[in-house]
């Protein structure tokens, strides 16, 4: 990188917020995916003015800029694949306003999801889209990839809560979108354009989020299924039974085997396990919905249904689901976690299809997911040493994407495209859609400095 650019960056953020040390360049080369590439420098801006000055400079010298939050992306979204500047937003971490009377909060992008949760708790409010990495993931990152979570089935994803943004554009100008109202149809919805744009259109420097009153009553149950398709049917039937659970988590037989190998849970080695949770403002309400869930589960051949009657019992039921992240990393050296999402009614076909793909390529796939919203997480396990094995993994991944799309689904429900799914974009979006997306990218970022190489937008 041009020394003039380095010197100018130093002037903007000062020494303590600038680094070209090896240790920082290595740690910023990665996110939680298998991708990596070193940047040339890392900077930690403190405010919007600094972000603006940095982008103006980068635009002038045509230096790539990759914004980064906690670096928990599973798609390579924050990997600076063309080098340049990593714009680490962690030090813009203030909760600026909590206005429960207006049902909103205003935060800087580096605020961690969990930090906001704790702050809202004393008001009896919460921010519902809760990614599994919420103890570390930043709200800026969550907005940039439109993160989902375990309660998406009832509460939707991040996009359903973003009321407005402050975004620094590639030329350094500062754009304010949306409003601080519950309703707003004034002009184009620029806010939504930036949610999920993976840092390719601008850098988010302030976020206004809608928050919800927190339902205090919860009901939880787990159930086992001898046939995986039955579990899929139970979930899709629950979703049309007239109630709305907040969570429907699914673990397949491979996940259960992994849990039994890595923990003392001693789960029955059946085809699938489902955890359901309902909530409400009275216990009767939550229980009424849970009765319905159990009724549907029983009709679909569930067995061993266990219902929690205390928070401790509920916590116990969650143990298997929560332990999964730990055991999965111990089976093989590497794993790819996809987030293919299908229409809810297509779940049984998608689940059996993934099994067939696993068999076809002789690649172990442990599938879990937030199935209430049709969101699967097939975890493809591999060692990554044998090139022939890696080739089979690539084919299996491609086939999962194709199957999802054939069933009317999407490549990604909540992780984003990043690098991992970039080459598959044209499978989901036809040339008209791809060209519209490319035109939008050109409009906002004519020099292609913002997170270049992502989302398959470059021809």
């Amino acid at each position, binding site marked *: 990188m041009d020394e003039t650019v380095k010197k100018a960056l130093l002037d903007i953020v000062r020494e303590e917020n600038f680094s070209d040390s090896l240790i920082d360049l290595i740690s910023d080369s990665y996110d939680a995916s298998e991708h990596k590439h070193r940047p040339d420098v890392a900077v930690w801006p403190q405010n919007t003015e600094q972000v603006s000055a940095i982008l103006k400079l980068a635009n002038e010298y045509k230096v790539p800029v990759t914004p980064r939050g906690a670096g928990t992306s599973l798609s390579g979204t924050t990997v600076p694949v063309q080098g340049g500047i990593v714009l680490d937003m962690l030090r813009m971490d203030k909760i600026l306003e909590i206005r429960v009377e207006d049902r909103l909060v205003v935060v800087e992008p580096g605020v961690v999801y969990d930090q906001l949760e704790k702050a809202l708790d004393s008001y009896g409010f919460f921010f519902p889209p809760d990614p599994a990495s919420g103890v*570390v993931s930043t709200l800026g990152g969550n907005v940039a990839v439109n993160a989902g979570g375990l309660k998406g089935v009832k509460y939707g994803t991040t996009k359903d809560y973003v009321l407005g943004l402050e975004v620094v554009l590639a030329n350094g100008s500062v754009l304010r979108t949306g409003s601080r109202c519950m309703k707003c149809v004034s002009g184009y919805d620029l806010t939504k354009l930036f949610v999920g744009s993976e840092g390719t259109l601008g850098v988010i420097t302030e976020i206004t989020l809608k928050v919800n009153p927190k339902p205090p009553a919860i009901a939880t149950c787990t159930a086992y299924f001898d046939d995986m398709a039955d579990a899929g049917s139970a979930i899709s039937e629950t979703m049309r039974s007239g109630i709305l659970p907040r969570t429907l988590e699914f673990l397949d037989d491979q996940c259960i085997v992994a849990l039994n190998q890595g923990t003392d849970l001693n789960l029955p080695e059946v085809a699938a396990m489902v955890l359901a949770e309902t909530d409400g403002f009275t216990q009767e309400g939550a229980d009424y919905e849970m009765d319905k869930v159990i009724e549907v589960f029983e009709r679909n051949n569930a067995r061993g249904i266990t219902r929690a009657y205390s928070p401790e019992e509920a916590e116990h039921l969650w143990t298997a689901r929560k332990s999964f992240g730990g055991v999965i990393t*111990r089976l093989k050296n590497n794993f790819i976690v996809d987030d293919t999402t299908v229409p809810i009614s297509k779940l049984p076909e998608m689940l059996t299809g993934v099994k067939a793909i696993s068999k076809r390529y002789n690649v172990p796939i442990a599938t879990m997911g937030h199935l209430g919203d049709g969101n699967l997480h097939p975890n493809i396990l591999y060692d990554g040493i044998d090139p022939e094995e890696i080739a089979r993994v690539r084919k299996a991944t491609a086939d999962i994407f194709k199957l999802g799309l054939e069933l009317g689904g999407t490549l990604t429900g909540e992780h984003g495209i990043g690098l991992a799914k970039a080459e598959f974009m044209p499978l989901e979006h036809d040339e008209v859609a791809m060209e519209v997306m490319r035109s939008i990218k050109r409009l906002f970022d004519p020099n292609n400095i913002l997170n270049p190489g992502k989302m398959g937008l470059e021809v």
Partner: protein
Amino acid sequence: MEAKYNFADRFGDQVLRCSKCGLCQAVCPVFGAMLRPSYSARGKMLILKEVMDGTIELSDELIETLFQCTICKSCFENCPSGVDVPEIIRQTRRDMVQIGSCHPAFEGMNEVLKNHTNIYAEDEPEDFERERNKKAKYVYFIGCVGSYREDEATMSTLDLLDRLKVDYTLIDEVCCSGVLEDLGYQINERLARKNIDLILATGAKAVITGCPYCSRTFNSKPQYAELNDKGIKIIHVTQFLKGMDFGVKTDKLVTYHDPCDLGRHCGIYEEPREIVRKIAPRFAELRHNRVDALCCGAGGGVRGAYPKNSIAMARRRLQEVEEVGADVVLTECNSCVHNLSNAKLRKQKFRIYNISQFINELMEGTE
């Protein structure tokens, strides 16, 4: 094939098992205070992964992160993949020392302990106005920080033991030197021998330690195995005081800070709380407590090598004290007392004590 560095031989599988999920960032005290990803446990593992791949070598360039870890063990407790980062860091520091890449402060401490009896190179120990090396049922082992930096706190603890009519003696103790193992060196055999001989000479059946790190060193390091072989028990002062009746109470709002060496490293969480609850009916837990407790920032050689960042970590812990509105923070580790006290701002009016010191002051009527 033998790896180039011992850390790769011993822990290579764990370094590769790190799934890069980043959950350790939520609990790493160094990352939390500095918000620099290379300081987190994940950052360190990624760097070691590249060393194993041969992309980079261990070198002076890596000191800044590899020697900046308080060995607080929070990452290990929260790692879904069970990566024992503190042990990996300790081994890597040994590898670094072998190739001549070491933080000067760490090197300095090893040199100091070659020629002196304590980490501060102070040659005139405080005598605490007590006869030393006499025959007694217990040895009270103070530790370096309690002897040379928090001597008022130590005096108070000793006064409490006297009030409780405990038959103990002090010895001409020298640094247990356990800390050297965190810094890339080995326990100093000369110092270990001296401590063992002095303890054995008293005929004591148990050693009560004020410092949880000393306690851990005596209990777990082979250089001190002779103590255990001769049937001498090692107990931390909180374990000793548990179950005793002091007949005093405070009406102040009290909280408790879990030292990493006592909590995560030894699993002692409830004994100190039992004592605190007895003397302080108004008790409030800090937001991060027990296994989740935030490190004070002093451990793993960080206070000596990176004092500014060490204080920044202590300040984060003290913010939690402000949150609960406590009047008094109790702990039982002189190193924590020392670092937290140094970090306390003028506007923060709460007081920081060891439990034993606080009880003594209550009994004395000065608190």
